């Protein structure tokens, strides 16, 4: 009897502790990117507030939100999503609105957040933390010569070997058009027409038999390292990480890169709403965004963070030139048009899938 | 019927010539088997479980290779002939009727694989089914038949292609007593009317005795005795056979004197009795005297000529319907059994009674102990 009493008290006590302990669940993309967030946001956040951060990884953190909110069973407090997902989920009313001037921290010099974030980094329900890009990269050991443009990616005569591409219409179609000579400013205009879509697929047809498709961001560096492909599209941060941390003989070609934001969102009905907002405010502050660049080569979404970007964690690599937003890297770059994709994702994905299966 | 008793002399129809068999390379399951079976003979292999009967049958059928020695069928060495070319019919203990075929298809199977034409096939199947009185069941599946009916079909199937030799491995093992006895009769009848050679395996001695021309008693991978049933029962050649076939009383003792076919034995309690010498080599050796319970008498007027009496104490009387089975203490043994017929005038013995019992010296067989 006594034993049972002690036991049940202990259980009750534990339950009490669990209920009191503050924690927020953040769903992100895993890998080096997640590590950079843990180092730059989570650790200092827990130190400053005592709130634990429970970091989880998904192939696409935008995916589970719809299901969770509609099922009224939300377990995620904060998710790190792509812009098209952020906009669409917001439009569908699945996200908590975010007011930049009350919910986000001002810059150190007092500039309000709404002024300090770069264009397109703020939406009604989301706040960007980084700018990343889909770039082409190659293995210098496996490629004869030096590819310099996105057109070289589609030129298997000049640079023979397999290519890695993300199994998705997004960015793939744009890169195909740019490789076919469409200037980055006109890409979405061309892609809005049936002829433009045909043109992109025609370009993709030229390499179809040489493509190894990837899904998760961790795959392309692995494919490059294994020699399964000689060139691949990839998230620039993943390639940087492989270059610096694993000493892989990889090189990024910035020409034809497709820039995109990663944004934090809070799903409607997040279980720890207060902590989630606190986390959001903290993580997107000027210093934290600048610190993140110490861990990964994604550019900060705040103007005030840029001057604070310094050396990589190894203490010798200058991070400035590794940012997708660096002047030199922006020569022929395309900013992903979320509106376009919100309208045409279904149609193009269907066609893309049909093309894949054909 | 051919002269069966000395079939060993000529080359038989089926011959095991110094056959040995080992499964594991360490122990011999069949040790030096020599057996000759005449054409048209019904020979039964009888023996305790694990004595190697099935193994012998399987070697004959071609499913096991003899490790040493030769097996001949009709004068021809068949050691290397595959089973389907031996032309031997076989009835298995579980009948092995093909469950996915009807009775008719089962019977037609051996004819089909021999490429027989449809008409001939049908007549043969019909005849075989009629032979076992199962003509009406041609379209049934085996699962829709009783055990006894399945048994008949299995029999018909083994016979339908007119094999020279039929092997049966405990074919009646799964049937109840009455049906078994009925089938024994039918099999025997078929054997006689068809004139086929049958090698039959059983461990039911009653079955062996009623059906066979000769019985081979197996033990420990050897034939202990090969003889017609009556001889086997009445003149067992060693104590194993005596023990295995029917009930037996055994009195241990020492041979006093040996005199051709007869001898005198001193029992352990000191009595001296006369006995028939079966496999006694010399005076002074140990022996077991075996006496059948039904050859023991206790009423002085019924005692056979020259009978030998000895005192006994009744321990237990069991009423068994047709007989009384009386267990008594005789010459130190408490397991001595006497069987007396339940006749109108039979004296009823009571436990504790002492009396004199006796038997004819010919019925006391002095055997070498195992």
């Amino acid at each position, binding site marked *: 009897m006594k034993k049972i009493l002690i036991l049940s008290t202990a259980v009750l006590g534990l339950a009490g502790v669990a209920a009191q302990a503050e924690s927020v669940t953040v769903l992100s993309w895993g890998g080096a990117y997640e590590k950079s967030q843990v180092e730059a946001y989570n650790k200092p956040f827990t130190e400053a507030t005592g709130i634990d951060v429970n970091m989880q990884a998904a192939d696409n953190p935008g*995916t589970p939100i719809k299901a969770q909110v509609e099922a009224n069973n939300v377990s995620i407090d904060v998710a790190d999503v792509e812009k098209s997902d952020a906009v669409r989920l917001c439009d*569908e009313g699945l996200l908590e609105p975010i007011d930049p001037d009350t919910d986000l921290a001002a810059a150190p010099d007092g500039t309000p957040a709404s002024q300090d974030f770069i264009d397109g980094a703020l939406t009604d329900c989301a706040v960007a933390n980084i700018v990343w890009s889909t770039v082409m990269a190659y293995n210098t050991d496996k490629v004869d010569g030096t590819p310099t443009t996105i057109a070289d990616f589609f030129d298997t005569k000049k640079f023979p070997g*397999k290519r890695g591409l993300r199994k998705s219409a997004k960015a793939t179609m744009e890169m195909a058009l740019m490789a076919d000579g469409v200037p980055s400013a006109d890409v979405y205009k061309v892609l809005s027409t049936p002829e433009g879509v045909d043109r992109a697929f025609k370009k993709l047809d030229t390499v179809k038999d040489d493509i*190894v498709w990837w899904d998760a961001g961790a795959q392309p560096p692995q494919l490059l390292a294994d020699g399964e492909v000689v060139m691949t599209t990839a998230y620039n941060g993943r390639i940087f990480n492989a270059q610096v941390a694993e000493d892989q003989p990889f090189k990024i070609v910035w020409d034809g890169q497709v820039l995109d934001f990663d944004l934090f969102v809070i799903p409607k009905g997040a279980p720890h709403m207060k902590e989630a907002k606190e986390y959001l405010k903290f993580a997107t502050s000027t210093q934290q965004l600048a610190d993140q660049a110490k861990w990964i080569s994604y550019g900060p979404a705040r103007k005030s963070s840029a001057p604070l970007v310094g050396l990589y964690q190894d203490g010798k690599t200058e991070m400035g030139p590794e940012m997708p937003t660096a002047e030199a890297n922006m020569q022929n770059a395309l900013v992903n048009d979320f509106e376009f994709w*919100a309208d045409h994702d279904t149609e193009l994905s*269907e066609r893309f899938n049909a093309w894949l299966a054909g | 019927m051919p002269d069966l008793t000395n079939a060993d002399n000529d080359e038989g129809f089926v011959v095991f010539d110094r056959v040995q068999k080992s499964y594991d390379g360490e122990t011999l399951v069949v040790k030096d088997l020599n057996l000759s079976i005449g054409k048209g003979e019904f020979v039964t292999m009888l023996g305790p479980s694990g004595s190697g009967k099935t193994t012998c049958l399987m070697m004959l059928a*071609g499913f096991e290779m003899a490790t040493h020695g030769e097996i001949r069928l009709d004068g021809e060495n068949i050691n290397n002939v595959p089973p*389907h070319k031996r032309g031997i019919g076989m009835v298995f203990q579980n009948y092995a009727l093909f469950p996915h075929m009807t009775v008719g298809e089962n019977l037609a199977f051996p004819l089909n694989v021999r490429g027989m034409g449809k008409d001939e096939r049908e007549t043969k199947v019909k005849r075989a089914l009629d032979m076992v009185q199962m003509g009406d069941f041609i379209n049934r599946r085996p699962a829709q038949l009783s055990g006894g009916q399945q048994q008949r079909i299995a029999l018909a199937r*083994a016979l339908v292609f007119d094999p020279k030799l039929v092997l049966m491995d405990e074919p009646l093992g799964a049937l109840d007593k009455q049906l078994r006895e009925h089938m024994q009769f039918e099999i025997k009848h078929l054997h006689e009317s068809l004139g086929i050679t049958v090698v039959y395996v059983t461990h039911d001695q009653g079955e062996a005795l009623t059906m066979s021309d000769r019985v081979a008693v197996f033990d420990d991978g050897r034939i202990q005795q090969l003889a017609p049933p009556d001889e086997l029962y009445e003149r067992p050649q060693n104590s194993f056979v005596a023990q295995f076939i029917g009930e037996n009383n055994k009195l241990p003792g020492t041979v006093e004197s040996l005199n051709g076919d007869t001898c005198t034995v001193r029992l352990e309690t000191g009595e001296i009795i006369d006995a028939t010498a079966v496999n006694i080599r010399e005076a002074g050796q140990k022996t077991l005297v075996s006496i059948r319970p039904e050859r023991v008498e206790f009423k002085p007027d019924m005692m056979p000529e020259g009978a030998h009496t000895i005192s006994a104490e009744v321990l237990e009387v069991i009423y068994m319907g047709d007989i009384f089975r009386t267990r008594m203490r005789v010459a130190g043994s408490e397991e001595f059994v006497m069987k007396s017929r339940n006749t109108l005038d039979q004296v009823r013995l009571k436990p504790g009674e002492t009396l004199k019992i006796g038997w004819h010296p010919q019925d006391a067989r002095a055997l070498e102990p195992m």
Partner: protein
Amino acid sequence: MTDVTTELRTADGKSLKAALAASQVRAKRRAFFLVAPLLLFILVTFVVPIGQMLKQSVYNDAFSSTAPALDKWFQANPLGTPLDEGAYAALASDLKLMKENRTQGQAGTRINYDVAGTRSLFTSTARKINRLEPPWKEAILGVNEGWSDPNLWRAMRSASSPYTIDFYLAAMDHTRDKDNNIVPVNPNRAIYGKLFGRTAMLSIIITVLCMILAFPIAHLLATLPLAKSNLLMIFVLLPFWTSLLVRTTSWMVLLQQQGVLNDLLVWIGIINNGQRLEMMYNKTGTIIAMTHILLPFMVLPLYSVMRTIPPSYVRAARSLGATSWTAFRKIYLPQTLPGIGAGSLLVFILSVGYYITPALVGGADGQLISNMIAFHMQNSLNWSLAAALASLLLGGVVVLYWLYDRLVGIDNMKLG
């Protein structure tokens, strides 16, 4: 014969039937409580979700629930009515409502499934709707000319009822034109028919491969002495015990172009370095990997059937004059049919629905219909289409099951 009709009674005169029922009530209740947890589990995890899926495939209220005014206008005016001011007024009123409830994205997404490129019409027009004034037709067309597309109005009309078979049409590569006629989609978007076909084809190949590989293994398992067959059984079950990721990684190591198998072939000299085989990220990869995963599902039912076939059947056949091949074909094989049937049905149904493996090793041409369902569940979030595809798949499997029952008989199936 009056006795036949009079009811039988127990000793104390009660009706026998009633007495029997009463005596069984307790046993029945106990039996029910024993199966209740399973029943509940099946209900919650199987019956309800499948019911929901079926509903979702014909029911989508994303637009109908957000556009009451348009619904009313469509009810009052049949297809073909010119788009007058009333229609645009209804649209404006609904857009205002959408803006208020933040449902313009949801509504736009629903219409966008039908007519591509229309989602931004809803979001951009809703953004400005509060600044617009009547007349609505002019005002709205002023914001975006796209609103005058008759096909868009046809789509809105059909979406204004939550019940629709359009997702099934889409799942069968069909759509509607502006006059509501069912027409095939543009061939370069037709994908599901092809994928259903490929799924069936690959599943058949996988099933046949499993059968060919499993038969000898199962036979060996059934005939070997226990100690050895247990060891072999462990090998057969090994795939069950390894995590999918470990297995996928090992397939990659083995099968990729720079992998062990290709290295070996090059080293032996069967192929030269330029001709390395592609056994991964295509159909071949899917077939190899799925055959590996599903093999136990074929081996186990086969094994359980073969174990019950006594060796005496084949022996009997041999003694009756059959060669070993005839005995196998005519006697052994037919008796393993229930196992083959059960195993094949199991493997086929499982492979039809498998999606993780093809997603990981299938590349582009090794994708199956289930990958498309997953795509619509997770990426495009078009759950109704996913549900329609899944329902078609389910229907196919049910038809197959029914055929099997008709041809072989379900009670002839032996799973182990």
